[in-house]
């Protein structure tokens, strides 16, 4: 479960309010999607969940652990994939996965089993011993996803996870999301693609200018105006203020 309580974050000495008093609960077993235009505050909110940014006010709690006060325990059960996969380019894919396995304390057998599964699914087995530097953007995204899956975390947080992925990998990732949450685990991701949010999420939160302006299931959101209208027109209407 992820819990954000009155979380705010500003930049430039308060002149830019990136996230404004955000309160949100994502229960275990749910896929939650942050939907919003560019610069809405999705990435800032996500970075505060995983502890990369400190909120100015409010608290973030992951599976009962306060990310600010009990950071190590929260990090032990959570993994994150950034929007741009900035990972160690001078290491090989295998070395990077070994590094992640070591720091999360993943046992060798579990490591082997999970790596075989995901490397095959993402078609990375052939390039595993090559330096990450030589990977395409999509391949880097896939190795970052494999690394995030390796510890089998209770909470996964992903920022624009489908960007750069080929259709096959995107399809597999959607299956993976479902499988992950069917095991009672939590998944939160951001996107600005409405179809992705519509197809994947149990619930969606529309974020605009740092504020969560709507949240609920697709049906709930559509019911806000009229059930016949598309999520896209609702989104455009809500974010056009």
């Amino acid at each position: 479960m992820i819990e954000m309580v009155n979380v705010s974050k500003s930049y430039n000495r308060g002149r830019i309010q990136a996230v404004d008093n955000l309160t949100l609960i994502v229960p275990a077993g749910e896929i939650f999607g942050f939907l919003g235009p560019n610069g809405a505050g999705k990435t800032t909110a996500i970075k505060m969940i995983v502890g990369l940014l400190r909120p100015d006010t409010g608290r973030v709690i992951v599976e009962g652990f306060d990310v600010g006060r009990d950071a190590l325990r929260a990090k032990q059960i959570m993994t994150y994939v950034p929007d741009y996969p900035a990972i160690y380019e001078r290491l090989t894919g295998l070395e990077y996965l070994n590094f992640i396995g070591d720091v999360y304390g993943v046992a060798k057998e579990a490591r082997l089993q999970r790596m075989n599964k995901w490397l095959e699914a993402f078609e990375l087995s052939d390039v595993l011993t090559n330096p990450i530097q030589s990977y395409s953007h999509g391949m880097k995204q896939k190795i970052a996803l494999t690394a995030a899956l390796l510890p089998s975390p209770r909470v996964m947080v992903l920022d624009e996870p489908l960007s750069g992925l080929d259709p096959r990998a995107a399809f597999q990732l959607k299956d993976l999301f479902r499988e992950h949450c069917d095991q009672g685990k939590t998944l939160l991701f951001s996107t600005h693609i409405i179809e992705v949010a519509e197809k994947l999420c149990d619930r969606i939160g529309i974020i605009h200018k740092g504020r969560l302006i709507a949240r609920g299931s697709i049906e709930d959101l559509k019911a806000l105006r009229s059930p016949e209208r598309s999520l896209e027109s609702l989104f455009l209407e809500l974010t056009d203020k």
Partner: protein
Amino acid sequence: MRKTGILFRAGLKSNFGLALMCHRWFKEKKDRWILPIIAASIAGVLPILSGLVILIQRTYDVLQPMNQERVLLAWGVLAGQIAILIFGIYYVVSAFYFSRDLEMLIPLPVHPYEVMLSKFSVILANEYLTIAALVLPFLITFGVLSGGGTGYWINAVLVYAALPVIPLALVSALVVAMMRLVNFTRRKDFFIFVGSISLVALAFAIQFLPQVAGNENTTVADVAQFLSSRDSLLEKVGAFFPPCIWAAKAIAGGFSEEGLKNLALFLGTSVFFFLVLILAAERLFYKGAVGLSEAAVQNKPLSRRELSRRLSSGRRAFSAIFIREWRIMVRTPIFFLNGILIVILLPLFFIPMVQVASSPFGSSLRRAAAQEGSLIIILLVALFMVICSALNGASSSAFSREGAQFWISKAIPVAPRRQAAAKFLHSCLLGIVGIFAAAIVADYVLRLKATVLCTSAGLALAACAMMTAVGMIIDLARPLLDWTNPQKAIKQNLNVLLALCTDIGILTAIFFGVRALLRAEAAPAVVIGALYGVLIGLFALSYAALLRFAEKRYPEIEN
């Protein structure tokens, strides 16, 4: 040329982070505390510079009666040019071929030579700053001592302006040609390693060959005759690189016929090399640069058994971080040069320097070293080891080197103090490599007793550990994480300079402490014991401060 100017300005802003610096200082009003620190750091280097100036002054006083003083100018010029030649290859290769802006620049409607000239100019601007501390003390001290007139100073400015052109153009033309003719693009790191090691070998040859040539059956009469003719020493030093003779004669000669003739020769040669570079750039630059994003890899599927064999069987997080640090440093050429190669090479550069004065100087050093329990020798050897181990940017760029990947260190479930400890061990080991290399050279030159060597190494180790922790604290206070070219993380990182100045400050304070003890006629054992106590105490304090600071600072760093 207008386009070159636009590219140059953009490159300069990006290279020195001018736009970002202005934004931080004047718009965000952040990091302003760095200004007084920079001023204090520059002030901290002044004692070293004044030491160099005094050395030049004394040498001038010795050489001037023999009409050999102009060799000083050649030494200054040569030192600057050799430094550019050796380190230039890294800067040229990374700026010309491996900087990330190239993919944006190639599609622009500009000539290849304009792109390359703008990059060349940015490196040139960098080099003026880099060699200033090496060359300017020679030019200024000589000018003051010889009473140089207007001609001297104008020629000195012109020579200084043109000084980096020949070695940089030489390296650039060589690199451009090699990148075009040989398919090194797929082995770029290998190319940088081989290229730099070849240039280092060349630098050694330049230092060794004159001695070899001069050592055959030399008699006292020969030496007397040699020194009786004006500038014989200058001619000998510059025999392997005549432009430094022209530069020295141009500056010293001022507006005289000799001065102007040599100035024309020096500037003309610089212009010639520059034109060759432009020609090579227009014809070859883009041909070598296109396709660089391709990497030299072969896809090799791993069998399940092979994968199982190569999987780590669960290292501790500390070891995993230590190994990561090591791998990234060894595999990134600019980190390798500034972190590892420099600590090995620096002591080696002292071998020929000492042999230059082999007969009187070397033997007197050995005699002093042979004295039982020579305190001064122990301290000097320890200082030499400290300089060799501390002159690498590993500790003061330990966090900056992570760059955009720092998010991983923040996201993983490993306490910042453990991460800092693993990085400390890595940086400290590099320092120990430097101490070891310095010990070998010191023993080779001075034939030291084992006790002297061990005592010096112990002192150097304590100082190195303390300096490593201090360097890391400085880098952690203001890590440079938004670089796109790894060169910026270590070579152009202000933290490296700040750490160096702090180290100099600490060593100066220790020097005064030791001098006070010596004046109080303390026994050698007391001096050494006190030094050990102070250094170990400082290390313990700085290491504890580093670990505490890491816990505080990691959550604050936002990248």
